[in-house]
């Protein structure tokens, strides 16, 4: 049985704003299934004496003091923006696909 269905891949594609054609959905569903299978093998080696972990570092409470440091100028910040207006990032209409 597949670990991921074609419908789930279509749903993920929509959430990721990827316009996938039908044959692409078939293609990626099969690929993702292999990937999920590979990841699942990690779960097989987990034993009761190994606590679940979401992080490679055995650290907690790593903070910085609440101190201000200079960042970028607006010119630097906007240098790589595809479009700029009034020192702001200009972006396409936001709710286009939902409206």
């Amino acid at each position: 049985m597949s670990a991921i269905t074609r419908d789930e891949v279509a749903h993920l594609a929509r959430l990721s704003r990827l316009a996938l054609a039908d044959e692409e959905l078939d293609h990626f569903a099969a690929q993702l299934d292999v990937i999920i299978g590979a990841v699942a093998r990690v779960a097989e080696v987990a034993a009761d004496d190994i606590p679940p972990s979401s992080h490679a570092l055995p650290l907690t409470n790593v903070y910085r003091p609440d101190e201000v440091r200079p960042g970028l100028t607006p010119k630097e910040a906007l240098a790589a923006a595809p479009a700029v207006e009034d020192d702001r990032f200009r972006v396409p209409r936001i709710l286009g696909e939902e409206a």
Partner: protein
Amino acid sequence: MPYDEALERFEPVLGLETHVELGTHSKMFCACPTTFGAPPNTQVCPVCLALPGALPTANAAAIESTIRIGLALNCSIAEWCRFARKNYFYPDMPKNYQISQYDEPLCFDGYLDVEVDGRTVRIEIERVHLEEDTGKSTHVGGATGRIHGADYSIVDYNRAGIPLVEIVTKPIPGTDRLAPEVARAYATELREVMRALGVSDVRMEEGSMRCDVNVSLMPRGATEWGTRTETKNVNSLRSVERSVRGEISRQAAILAEGGTITQETRHFHEDTGTTTSGRSKEEAQDYRYFPEPDLVPIAPDPAWVAELKAALPELPRVRRLRLQQEWGVSDLDMESMHNIDAIDLVEATVAAGAPPADARKWWMGELARRANEAGVPLVELAITPDQIARVCAMVAGGALNDKLARQVLEGVLNGEGTPDEVVAARGLQIVNDEGELSAIIDQVLADNAAAAEKVRGGKIAAVGALVGGVMKASRGKADAARARELLLEKLGVSE
């Protein structure tokens, strides 16, 4: 449907999600400043712009403030928890995700007690978690300046990454027709707790405190809650109350006609007090949260948490109960002072030497009336607690009566100077000179022979008109009680 009719048929269940921007110097995950109103994109860096390779580091002060908020709201503090990525495609966050917390909030299971209509309502707190604020989008084109109909948007990321605490209540049933007032009282109390803790400036008009208001209705007697809507970013305490009231009426009208409520986000309109549909909730909810790999877990040392708890300031409700005892006022009096933010003012006036009853009388009477007329909060009136205390002292010392005192207050509010300056400039001293008063009385008796005759004839009540005449002739500066005595004496009548 009219609100009263809606409440006859349905019972509301409330829920509130409140976002509070913390008043830290720097952002949550980078060292950019957080000053409100700075020119666009002047408080940004590679981290909050999500430039490739930039990594977040958590702000220690924000962690501490969040724990203090949790403690003040009687929450348990997680011994271990993580940040999580909330994934969504929306340009208000350049990362395409927001760092938030998901199933492991820093604080959980608390409560906040609020007073409404003379009774205490306990609002259960589900969770308090820490996240980062988003950038500010301006929608360009279209007729309304809103998202719908806009041609494109422009984004300022100064606000992106400012530490944001989200405080979520459990569903609040049983408020019945007081639902709007309970929602407002909760938001008010929460704002005061934040102020007492000094963790945020909680300015709703600047967006440093924002309420999302959930409302659902169920038919009277039903046990299963209805579908709820979430009204976003309600930006004043008054709007919190109005949005609940408006949404109850709107939902009741739909349900009464056999319709169904759509679970959705709605936008509140300040001008009409109504809401309109935003995005549907199902659409937005698939955030694919997962533990944030760029940050290590938070594991507050229980000893440190205990220290923070011991060092909490006196909380607003405890302070109110203390002041209520000290001032000897009723629950309802205290609540009405609280409702118009008069408690600090009365307390400061008492601290400046006024008796509590007098301080309360002026702030809740004449000054509340003037603030109401001017449409401004009481605290914004151009008069200080010290000045009210001075006026109280002048009344107590016999230099002013209440009527003259009102004129003094008016003068101060008009910018004519201090109470003493207004008294001098307007000549508002009570007439203490018996000779002067006597002359005024003689004139009034001469001008009102008929009334004088009635009093002589035994109709003592008629003296009131004569006292009124004396007050008028003295332009309010006579001591009314003394004038009455003198009038009766001159008319040869005793009581």
